[in-house]
């Protein structure tokens, strides 16, 4: 009879002993996860495979190395915005201003690199100013939400209108601003050489493996049970395959040959923000406030501070995304920050499995969701469908994802108590 009391026997470390028991335990966990509506990335991974297979048959030039690189570059801007959205959604809030906030960043970076304008700065400084302004605006909006108590929907809806207005006012006079700074444009259109690509893949895999090993050793030292050791090994292998696979395909592409810098930026922010969300007290407090603001307050957490910082993160990520989006076009025009950018970013986070009700979600879900949206829109494009179809399909996927989330939530509520 296996002990079903983890608490009573926490010092057992690795579950040595017979294979059958380990197996049974794994199944039990998997079942528990399903029962409590904790589906993880399973549905979206399956969905992604289905989408890719479908379009591979539908369009001849979809399943190619060139198009693979295309998708990476196309999705980067939205992914950055979606990273910020995840944090806001974790609180159970919403930020509708990020679309045009990214436009403000694009405008700012374009303005501050403009040769002969009298305020031309080096590219990195211009980028820093743009991201900084967006972070500041995000902070102001967050302060109104957290300190005054105006609903975030209203505050950021006002932000949406205001920043759109600012962009129109500035660009109505100037028309189009061309970005000539190669450094800025490189954020979207630089491709690594194939050797550099392999090195990056090796470094990322190495860091992940070392991190995993480190946490294992820490658990070992504290005498805490190590859960699902097989899964950990599988994860490391999965990361290795993903890294080297991506580089292999990217190096195979002909037109822009090599691993895109944009993809590397996505990975850097993914790792950094995941660390922030999962491994720091701040991230823990974000989840706590999203789960129960009152409980968080009683635990001594400064709820207003957490809220403001989260809106700063959201603004800053909109800034980063805005710069990259502008760099991809080498210019800023009246459409900047508009279109489906905002809704794509929020959809990405939600499709990836982040709950709109707060407290549940992961940073990586933004990447997965953005991947789905980018793949669908790219696939429909290459297959020759019109924009209308893209919207309809994306909308349907969004509805499916949220329905799944809601059902999962109901199951979770039922399994409690």
């Amino acid at each position, binding site marked *: 009879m296996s002990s*079903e*009391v*983890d*608490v*009573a026997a*926490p010092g057992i470390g690795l579950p040595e002993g017979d294979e059958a028991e380990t197996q049974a335990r794994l199944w039990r966990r998997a079942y*528990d996860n399903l029962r*409590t509506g904790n589906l993880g990335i399973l549905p979206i991974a399956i969905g992604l495979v289905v989408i890719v297979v479908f379009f591979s048959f539908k369009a001849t030039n979809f399943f190619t190395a060139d198009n693979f690189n295309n998708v990476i570059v196309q999705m980067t801007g939205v992914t950055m915005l979606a990273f910020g959205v995840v944090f806001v959604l974790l609180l159970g809030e919403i930020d509708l201003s990020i679309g045009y906030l990214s436009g403000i960043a694009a405008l700012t970076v374009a303005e501050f690199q403009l040769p002969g304008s009298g305020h031309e700065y080096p590219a990195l400084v211009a980028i820093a100013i743009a991201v900084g302004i967006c972070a500041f605006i995000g902070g102001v909006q967050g302060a109104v939400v957290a300190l005054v108590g105006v609903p975030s929907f209203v505050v950021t809806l006002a932000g949406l209108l205001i920043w759109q207005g600012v962009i129109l006012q500035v660009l109505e006079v100037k028309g189009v601003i061309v970005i000539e700074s190669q450094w800025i444009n490189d954020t979207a259109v630089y491709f690594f050489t194939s050797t550099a690509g392999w090195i990056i893949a090796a470094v990322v895999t190495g860091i992940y493996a070392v991190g995993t090993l480190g*946490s294992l050793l*820490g*658990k070992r*030292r*504290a*005498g*805490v049970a190590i*859960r699902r050791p097989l899964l950990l090994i599988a994860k490391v292998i999965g990361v290795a395959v993903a890294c080297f696979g991506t580089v292999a395909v990217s190096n195979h592409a002909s037109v822009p040959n090599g691993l895109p810098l944009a993809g590397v930026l996505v990975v850097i922010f993914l790792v950094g923000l995941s660390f922030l969300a999962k*491994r*720091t*007290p*701040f991230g*823990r*407090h974000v*989840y*706590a406030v*999203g*789960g*129960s603001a*009152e*409980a*968080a307050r*009683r*635990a*001594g*957490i400064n709820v207003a501070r957490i809220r403001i910082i989260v809106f700063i993160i959201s603004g800053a990520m909109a800034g980063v995304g805005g710069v990259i989006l502008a760099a991809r076009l080498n210019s800023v025009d009246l459409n900047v920050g508009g279109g489906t950018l905002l809704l794509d970013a929020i959809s990405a986070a939600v499709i990836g499995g982040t709950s709109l009700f707060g*407290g*549940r979600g992961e940073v990586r879900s933004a990447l997965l969701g953005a991947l789905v949206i980018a793949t669908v829109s790219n696939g429909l494009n290459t297959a020759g469908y019109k924009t209308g179809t893209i919207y309809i399909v994306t909308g349907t996927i969004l509805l499916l994802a949220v329905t799944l989330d809601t059902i999962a939530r109901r199951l*979770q*509520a039922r*399994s*409690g*108590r």
Partner: protein
Amino acid sequence: MSETPILQLRGISKSFGSVQALTDVDFEVRHGEVMALVGDNGAGKSTLIKCVAGIHGVDSGEILFEGKPVHITGPKDAARLGIEIVYQDLALCDNLDVVQNMYLGREERDRLWRLKEPIMEQRTAETLRSLSVTTIRSIRQPVASLSGGQRQSVAVAKAVQWNSKLVILDEPTAALGVAQTRQVLELVKRLGDQGLAVVLISHNLHDVFEVATRITVLRLGRDVGVYEREKTTQQEVVQAITAGIPTKVAGIPTTAPELAS
């Protein structure tokens, strides 16, 4: 064994506008005892506790903690003294797991701002084991998936973990079924056995008589008596709750004669 009570309230009065919530209330808790605080709705139980927690300031009277007069102006002051309060609505985050809830707001971290998960997990396991809370299958499962009794146990364990000396439980069994109530009452008893002072606020005299060492009765904002469980009956306490008259003289609780210098 006459020792200083861990918490002593002397002549506490508190009014909200024209409503006199507490009038000249004396109250004390000793080390290792479970002191029940009972009374009808509106008798002032919660107000008294909130004064100790620092949520309300007192109008007059003094609070002595371990014999020394203290000023508690906020929940943090109370926590610093070693007073932890488990409120009726638990204050747990459903989406976090047991370990995360236990350390909420007081996470262990290293210099790089990384959470020390293994250490927190290990200590949580230790705390729960020391309280014999064994019904929780995994301390890494979200609190949402726990039963009411388990949640209450986690909330109590969370309060106990911080070297607290006095734990105040506000209606811990109000929302629980029979088996789970038993579970929580056992836990309350163990707290007392471990030398902690416990204040148990409850409507349920049956529960109170099961675990309390002494019982303080409040009525209409006054304390009408302190009873030792072994020397009293439920009837007597009910009588005090519904029709008790303040009997004390000069601020000396009737059943604590050893305190009268």
